[in-house]
């Protein structure tokens, strides 16, 4: 049985909402980016760099970064609490799950910090 609750919103409703909102952000970003790339097929480094360096794009990238991290965390948290349980791991389940969740959290944390540095670092 899964007992340790380590969800993001600590409440099913907020997790669910964050999941939907972040999905919308990711969808809009991806569609926008694909649109931009299609319209600018002869893209060179200077244009790309100026585009990504603009403040609106930095904000969009930051939003995207946090959305991906939150979405991944909630999704993978669900997966770990579905599959890394006593049904598959017996008594070791809680430790296995916690280690798994910590690895995911650490990875996402590094990803966020690295992302923020990339987006805002050159400012």
């Amino acid at each position: 049985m899964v007992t340790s609750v380590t969800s993001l919103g600590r409440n099913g409703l907020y997790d669910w909402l964050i999941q939907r909102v972040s999905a919308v952000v990711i969808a809009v970003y991806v569609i926008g980016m694909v649109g931009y790339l299609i319209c600018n097929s002869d893209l060179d480094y200077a244009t790309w760099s100026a585009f990504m360096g603009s403040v609106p794009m930095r904000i969009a990238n930051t939003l995207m970064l946090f959305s991906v991290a939150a979405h991944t965390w909630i999704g993978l948290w669900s997966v770990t609490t579905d599959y890394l349980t006593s049904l598959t791991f017996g008594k070791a389940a809680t430790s296995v799950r916690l280690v798994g969740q910590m690895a995911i959290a650490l990875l996402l944390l590094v990803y966020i910090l690295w992302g923020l540095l990339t987006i805002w670092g050159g400012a």
Partner: protein
Amino acid sequence: MKVSIYRYNPDTDREPTMKEYEVDTQGKDLMVLDILALVKEQDESLAYRRSCREGVCGSDGMNINGKNGLACITPLSEVAPGVKEGKKPLVLRPLPGLPVIRDLVVDMGVFYEQYEKVQPYLQNDQPAPAIERLQTPEDRAKLDGLYECILCACCSTSCPSFWWNPEKFLGPAALLQSYRFLADSRDNATEERLSRLDDPFSLFRCHGIMNCVSVCPKGLNPTRAIGHIRSMLLERGV
């Protein structure tokens, strides 16, 4: 025709086995439960539950060629093409995800515990009127598609979310009953009921897989009921 049945007696068997039987249906489109009766004539040791044999008691839920259903109202012709004609075997297993007591009989304990958690009875703290609490026909109509559940467990035991977390995720059957009381105009414990559902497991483990809808022998739609509860939680929470 060939019938293959899951057999397991925890007192004598080390592990479950599938046992083959040969049954003569005389070409008739019998119900799966009739086939079980014919098998039982050959082999008295076979254990299964049944009572009403007409789809109202909910005791003979089982997994029939991979799909949960009530044996008593599932004709051979509906199991899979070729089963009635004897070209394909009929394969019977217990409901998935629950501990097997013996053969096709499962321990429904955790299923009933989840049912109990939704407090499936009317709660109203207003003084009771002299005769009874009346309901308009419109309010009564809101309970259609909810009250008909016979607690056969076909839905919950086909739900992957229930398989993985049967103690924490209420499962489609209990959630359908939860909404049955949330939707009842005579019940005013809405807030208490909702407050018990907004953790990450009880309701939100439902990922809309809709296995529950496809197996319910009464044609009910737990996924829709879960959606209604989610909207109520959303309205309450934001």
